[in-house]
Every structure is written in C-alpha cells, then in structure tokens.
C-alpha cells in the first residue's frame, strides 16, 4: 500500500482521501494524484508517476546511436520532432558534426509545426477540463489533422516520424507541399486561431473560471524549476530559442510571448499567442529555405569520442535537456532526458493546496503534462 500523506493542519475537520488516479478523464495520461480534500478544497496533493515508465534510458544503452531515435519519438508522444531534434543536437555536438544549412532550416520548420500541434493538444485538454463537451476539442483536432497530413506526406508517418538522422534529415520536402502548407498557415490558420481565442479567453465563464486562479510570480516559478510557457506567463521572457539560438532561429525574427499577470488565463493567452508566433515563423522559414543537400555523410557505425555533453532545447513544454555520454563504442554509454514537466510536476505539491478541485485541474492543466516524457 502506497503511504498516503495525511496532514494535521486541517483544523480538525475530517478529510477525504481521494485518488484522482491513472484512469481519469482529465489527468492527460496515466498520472495519479493522491489528494487529501476537506470538502471540495485540496489540502495536500501528492503526484504519483511511473505508470508509463518503459525504461527508455536503459533501452538506449542497448541500441546503436542511430536506433535510439526510434525511442525518442515515443518519449514525448505529443511533440516528437523536438525530442528527436534535442537528441540529434546532443550527439552532433558530442561527435562534432556540422550540418548543412538546409537541414537546419528543415529541422526548425518541423520543430515549429510540432509546437503548433502540441499547443493544439494542450488547448483541447484545457477546454475539456473546464467542461465544454469537446466542441473546441474537436475544432483543435481538425487543425491538427491538417498539419498531420503534412507530416505524413513528408515523413510517411502521422505521429512517429523517425525523420531526423544524426547529421541531417531523412527526406526532403518538395516545394509543392511547402507552398500548400504556406497557404494554409497564411490564410486559414489565423482565422482558426481567432475562433480558438474567442472560444477560450473570449468566453466569460472561462474567464470567471481562470482569472486570478493560481497566480505565481516569476521568482517562484524559477525557484520551483518550472520553465516554458508557464514561466513566460509570469512575466519572465526566458526562451532558449532566443537566449541560446540553435538551428535557424538566429535568422528568424520572432517575439517571445510573455504575460505580466501570471494566472491561469495568462498561461492560456501566452500559448495562444505562441501558436500565431510559430505560424509566422514557419512562413518565414518556407520563404527563406536555402538550397543544398539535406544531410552530411555519417558512418553507419558512428563512434563519437569518449566524453559527455548536455544540450538544452526549447520544447513546447519548456527546457528539454539531453545529457549524452559515450565511451567510444557504437552504443550510448548513458542517455538522460531532462523533462521540463518532470520538474514542473515536482512543483505541484506546493502550488495546488488551498484550491478547489475544479481549480486544481485548471492549474495542473497549465503545465500541459505529457506522461511519456515524465516517466520515460
């Protein structure tokens, strides 16, 4: 029996021990919250994870450097390209491999499109949590399907592309697909973003549910290890794409979306603005895509020099760090993923107490969990 935290600071009233468990409609995957509730207010919240721990880090030590990319797709199954990209960047830095210009631009394009699909899934999850019966959920899913058609045309698979290679990418994107994507992003996507904004931040009931709920300052978030849109919504413009630019981000002009308020509504506004920002970036990427080959020749039995390195990438959820160690053989010696929401979840026992059950789901929805990345 897992030990259940029972706090005495409940002023003597009897508390209800509630398992908001792995099989629950709004825990976005197999997350288990052990809540101690006084009536409807949460007294203590203890997240229990590990229900999807497939041991990816141990399996990576059983694969060659190239085969690990298959595992990275299934790590954070909502933003696959950013996982692949983080891993490839780490290995390329360790092995000292320089990429051709076009490969960097292609990777950046897919990374930004993946940010759009990941934020759309967050949007669908948040609207389901506050109670709309799925109408915004299905609208967001429709837009995501359009982008998945593009992924499928380029990489051959909808969700598990396995498209990036160490030293470049697997397939090129022909200009007709790019032109079609460009018209979608320029003409239809902003209109759909307006409907999403109207359905969420424009709706009075949502504003009454989210305004002033879970207000946290930037110092608190940094101290508790939260990064990404949750931190940017508290006013701190911390974004790796601008602080430590990689890929083609240095050549793009984009604005880091922040929001001074720091409540749940601000987090929604930041992510909705990031949707538009990513679309704008993709258009610039499509226009300025340089010519050239898409990958550099890398030996199949790649043996990076012994040593280790740690590379941080901006995934849709925050700062995704990959720590790779090699002992000169064809298999990684150690593969470690620093998941942004693993540490975001460690902040939850401090952020959730004192809120109603309905507010707890709204605040917890703010860190946009995807269990594959937390449990690895």
């Amino acid at each position, binding site marked *: 029996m897992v030990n259940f935290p029972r706090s005495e600071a409940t002023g003597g009233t009897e508390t*209800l021990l*509630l398992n908001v468990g792995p099989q*629950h*409609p*709004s825990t976005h995957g197999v997350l288990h919250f052990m809540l101690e509730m006084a009536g*409807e207010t949460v007294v203590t919240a203890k997240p229990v994870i590990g229900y999807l721990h497939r041991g990816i880090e141990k399996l990576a030590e059983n694969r060659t450097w190239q085969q690990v990319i298959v595992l990275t797709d299934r790590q954070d199954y909502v933003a696959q390209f950013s996982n692949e990209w983080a891993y490839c960047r780490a290995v390329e830095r360790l092995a000292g491999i320089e990429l051709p210009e076009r490969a960097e631009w292609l990777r950046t394009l897919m990374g930004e499109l993946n940010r759009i699909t990941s934020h759309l899934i967050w949007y669908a999850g948040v*609207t*389901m*949590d*506050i*109670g*709309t*019966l*799925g*109408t915004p959920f*299905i*609208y967001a899913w*429709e837009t995501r399907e359009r982008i998945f058609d593009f992924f499928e045309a380029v990489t051959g698979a909808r969700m598990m592309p396995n498209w990036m290679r160490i030293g470049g990418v697997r397939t090129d994107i022909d200009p007709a697909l790019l032109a079609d994507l460009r018209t979608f992003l320029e003409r239809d996507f902003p209109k759909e973003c307006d409907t999403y904004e109207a359905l969420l931040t424009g*709706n009075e*009931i*949502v504003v*009454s*549910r989210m305004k002033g709920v879970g207000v946290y300052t930037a110092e608190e978030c940094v101290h508790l290890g939260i990064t990404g849109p949750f931190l940017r919504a508290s006013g701190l413009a911390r974004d790796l794409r601008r602080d430590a630019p990689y890929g083609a981000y240095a050549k793009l002009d984009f604005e880091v979306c922040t929001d001074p308020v720091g409540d749940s509504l601000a987090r929604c506004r930041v992510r909705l603005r990031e949707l538009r920002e990513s679309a704008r970036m993709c258009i610039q990427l499509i226009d300025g895509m340089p010519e050239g080959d898409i990958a550099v020749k890398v030996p199949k039995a790649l043996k990076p020099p012994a040593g280790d390195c740690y590379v941080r990438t901006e995934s849709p959820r925050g700062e995704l760090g990959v720590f790779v160690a090699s002992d000169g053989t064809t298999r990684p010696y150690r593969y470690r993923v620093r998941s942004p929401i693993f540490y975001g979840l460690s902040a939850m026992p401090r952020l959730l107490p004192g809120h*109603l*059950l*309905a*507010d707890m*789901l709204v605040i917890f929805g703010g860190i946009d969990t995807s269990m594959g990345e937390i449990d690895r």
Partner: protein
Amino acid sequence: MSAALWLRTIVGLVALLALLAGVTLFGVWWERKFIGHLQRRRGPLHHGWHGLLQLPADMIKMIAKEDTVPTAADSLLFQFGPVAAIVPAYAALAALTFAPGIALIDMQHGLLYVFAWETMLPLAFALIGWSCANKFTLIGGLRAAAQLISYEIPMLLAALGVVLTAQSMNLTTIINAQTGWWYVFKQPLGFVIFSVAMLAEMNRSPFDLPEAESELVAGYMTEYSGMKFGFVQLAEYSVLLVGSYLIAALFLGGWNMPFLPASWLWLALKIVLLMTSTMWFRGTFPRLRVDTLTQMSWKWLLPAALVNIMLVAALALWLGPKVY
C-alpha cells in the same frame, strides 16, 4: 371513483409513460446528432436512417447489462436511487396540460403540484450520491443538493410573477391568459431568472456540476452500471421535458401562437426548441465553478427575483387586468 375515471386515468398514465420513453429516446438521439453537427461531425449514422436504430440498440444493451452492486454500498438505497430519481419527474407530468382540454389532472394548483415534485430532486441526487459509498458520487451528490437548493428559490419567485398576473395557479388559465401578449414580453426579467434557474434544476450545462465529466469521472452516477444508468438518463430527460414545458407554458404562451388557431402543436414545437437550446448550451458552454454557482444564485438571482415580483405587482395594480 367512477369506472370512466379509472379508465381515463389508466390510459392517461400509460400515455404519459409512452410520452416519457419517447421523449427520452428522441432526446438522446437528437442530442447526439445535434451536438455532433455542432462539432463538425456526423453523430450516429450507420445504424438505421441517420442512426435512428442506435437508440433501441442502446436500450437493449443497457437492459441486458449486468447490475453491479458494490459491497460497500448501502444496497437498499442503492437500488432505490433510480426510483427516487424518476418518480418526481414522472408524477409531475400528470398535472401538465398539453392541449386546451387534455390533462390528466386539471387541478386548481397544478403549478404548486409540479413545484412540489420538483423540490424532491435534490433529495434524490443526494441520496444516490450518498448510497454508492464512492468518493466521486459523494462529492457529486452533495454538489447536486447544494446547486438545486440554491436555484429553487429564484425559480419559485420568478413563477410567482406569472401567478400574480394570471391570478391563478391552474396551468390552463395561465396559458389562456397569454392569448394576447405573452408573459415573456410583460416580465422579461422574470423570464430570464426562471429559465436560468430551470437550467440549473435540470443539471444542464453550464450548471452540470453534479455529473461533472472531467472532475468527478461521471459525477453521482459513477457507480451506476447498465440499466441504472439508463434510469438516470430517463430521469434527466423527464426533468428536461417538465422544465421545457414550464418555460413554454408560463412565459411563451403554451399553445397560443399569434394570428394562428391555438393547438397543441405549437406547445410541442416550443418544447422541442427549448430542449434543443439546452443541447446547444451543452455543446458550447464550459462549466461553472461551485462557488460562482452558489454565489450567482444567492447574490444575483434572488434579489433580482424579489425586485421582479414587486415590479410586476406594482404594474399589475397600476395598469389593471385588461392591459397587464
């Protein structure tokens, strides 16, 4: 009780039962189709014409589904739960007048009789929630009790405005008093308060906290399997029917239609339109939080209802019965 009265009652009750089952079947199908098309998808399609055969299939499956009774639950109350949910709404149907002459019981205080049954609902949901010994149902049941209690007073006071102008509680006289201007034009504030409170009584969105899908798994009916879940759905749709009828009869002029002969068809049309609008709300509105819900009733609807009564009474006395 004369033999003719016995016959009339039995036939009436069976007809009401058929009406209830029909409204539930039609309601569930129409809701899934309507919300489907609201969400750019088709809803039930492949079983029968546009999914019409979907409903008998659901009913047969639910009837032939095992009836699990948790050992920790209080089995007597657990089995009695659906009865407590269906009987109030079904019995309230008996006093509704669906056409100029057609009503099972045309009693002087029809409205009071319906409201009496309506106050049984919080008891039923709290009982269901408490008996299942499941934490989600307990929270759901208590939420249902709090919500229905909070929204009962504004509903009664808003209906008082109508009773005051029509000078009687008999549904037929109330509807006949609306041959000219409907009460929705004479008492717009009363109409708004009554429909908001009735929406809360029916547990329809945005007030569907008791069966909050995303927080409490399935609210107070988490432990109900098979036909018990069917019963609760039957209860929900019968309350929906009674609620839509009341809004249509009290404020939208029942079977009167301007410039057209009065017939029960208009009443049926109004009821269907009102039910569809609740489904439309269910498809778009998110859910209110518990405290905003109770605050809204006690701090806004109740004072507004009292002010509405004083206003209506003053107008009635000042303008006299012919005009107002």
